[in-house]
């Protein structure tokens, strides 16, 4: 893609500029220039209080999450009876309920099953397509690429009812595969766009050299190309996983009992004795964990993933 080429050219230019600056610095006066450079490097942190804004923002982000975690370790009496900033009598009962009651932990299993299915399907079909988009021009390619985007942007609300009827007609309601296929609506386009972004960063000369060396296309693709874009595949898989994991509307519409996701089960914590706040909080905390576990590995790619690989 032109953008990537541009980025490469920019980087070259950047390097040249950086070299130019340092070389003139050496010629003139080394020490003051170095001091200036060091000062410049701290441009964002010019004052000693640079950390105030990020810290305040992070506190704002963490407070509601902390409150949920806090509640998940309290008993319902404590939640409703006393107002305390941390659990007075920490209890694991709420988590115990979830891990022992099949109607709760099955929700997690259901969610994980369809999310993994969806991720595998999305990546498997998106890989060859992304390669085609990044390497070839073909009839209608731009229209197709745009059409994929419109599906990523389509409101799930529009699709909820027709999905229900479509999958009813095939007898697939309340199966994991139905949700996995339905989530392909937005995850396949997402995977294609992200992978295309990564693949365009791999110079075409690598393909050509491999063909000259006598590699067949499938062998080249699996042995050389896939390892080269392994991080891209990881990022795309992560985002497919994430967007399928966070979606509720379609997953709820297509399931009744056997494949009901945890997100839908959470909406029915009202029992005879009123809301079971503690269990609700514990269930919420458990849904945050998959994201929190992998976030460290994808921290540099989050902006890229949300921007469909275009950053």
């Amino acid at each position, binding site marked *: *893609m*032109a*953008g*990537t080429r*541009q980025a490469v050219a*920019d980087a070259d230019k950047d390097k040249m500029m*950086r070299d130019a*600056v340092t070389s003139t610095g050496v010629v003139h006066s080394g020490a003051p220039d170095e001091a200036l*450079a060091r000062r*410049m*490097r701290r*441009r964002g942190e010019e004052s000693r209080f*640079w*950390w105030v804004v*990020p810290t305040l923002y*992070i506190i*704002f*982000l963490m407070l*509601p*999450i902390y*409150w*949920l975690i806090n509640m998940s370790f309290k008993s319902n009496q404590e939640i409703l009876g006393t107002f305390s900033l941390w659990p007075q009598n920490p209890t694991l009962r709420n988590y115990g309920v979830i891990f022992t009651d099949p109607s709760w932990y099955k929700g997690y299993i259901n969610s994980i099953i369809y999310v993994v299915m969806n991720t595998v399907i999305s990546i498997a*079909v998106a890989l*060859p397509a992304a*390669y*085609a988009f990044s*390497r070839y*021009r*073909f*009839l209608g390619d731009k229209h*197709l690429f*745009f059409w994929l*985007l*419109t599906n990523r*942007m389509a*409101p*799930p609300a*529009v*699709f909820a*009812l*027709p999905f229900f009827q479509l999958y009813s007609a095939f007898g697939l309601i309340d199966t994991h595969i139905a949700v996995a*296929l339905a989530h*392909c609506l937005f995850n396949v386009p997402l995977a294609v766009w992200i992978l295309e972004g990564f693949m365009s960063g791999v*110079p075409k000369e690598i393909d050509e050299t491999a063909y000259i060396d006598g590699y067949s296309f499938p062998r080249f693709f699996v042995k050389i190309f896939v390892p080269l874009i392994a991080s891209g595949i990881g990022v795309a898989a992560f985002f497919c996983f994430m967007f399928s994991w966070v*979606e*509720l509307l379609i997953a709820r519409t297509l399931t009744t009992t056997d494949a009901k996701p945890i997100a839908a089960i*959470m909406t029915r914590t009202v029992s005879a004795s009123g809301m079971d*706040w503690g269990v609700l*909080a514990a269930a*919420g905390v458990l*849904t*945050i964990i998959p994201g929190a576990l992998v*976030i460290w590995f994808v*921290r540099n790619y*989050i*902006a*890229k993933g949300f*921007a469909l690989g*275009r*950053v």
Partner: protein
Amino acid sequence: MEKTWNNKAWFMVLPVLVLVAFSAVIPLMTVVNYSVQDTFGGNQFFWAGAEWFEEMLHSDRFWAAMGRNLIFSAIILAIQIPLGIFIALNMPRKGWGVPVCLVLMALPLLIPWNVVGTIWQVFGRIDIGLLGYTLHALGFDYNYVNDPFDAWVTVIVMDVWHWTSLVVLLCYAGLVSIPDAFYQAAKIDGASRWAVFRYIQLPKMQRVLLIAVLLRFMDSFMIYTEPFVVTGGGPGNSTTFLSIDLVKMAVGQFDLGPAAAMSIIYFLIVLLLSWVFYTVMTNYDVEK
């Protein structure tokens, strides 16, 4: 990169095409089908033509939901974009602070949307929530269940909490791509902090900012889960946005015709926005 013309590439795209056609085109055709027909139950359908579309376009309910949604999106953009830029400018560029900031700031983005709703539903409650309880203790008459204004504030603060990090991360990605040489040149010229922002940082962030604005607009325009969990569209209809209204109509009341007509109008708007997004992206790539 130069691409070669090769129509055989179609075979590589075929699986995607089939899969997305199954999960997008067939359902969309069903919607189109319903939007031009009427049914009195059973399987009997009558041609209705553009009737439902006319009804929708003259319906106060549709325009009210549309209006609410547009106001919501405008407020969201007006808060999140400047706030996101401001926070990105103040983020550290080097050292241990970078990964810590990235990880902690990205966390809300990866929380399931209904849990985001649950978190804020609990957090804002005046009996058991930290926010609601504190506001009440301070003497504010805050109650998002009964008061439309408070409900709006809650939904907006929730969205700011949920999505501002995306703007921050995008802007940050734009900022770190600026080479040091630019800042050194600015320093030598004696540029003020504002001039550095206006003439170096802002132009370099232009592309990511466009992406941020478009993504935030699209996502806020089809927001469903979070406000649905917190307020259920209420009190009254005050936080019933387009998606919530559509689901109410289609699944709740089973008014297939009007719901389908509304879906088509909704989808066309999104199509237009996607086209803007796509044009912006490709034009940027060509220009540079």
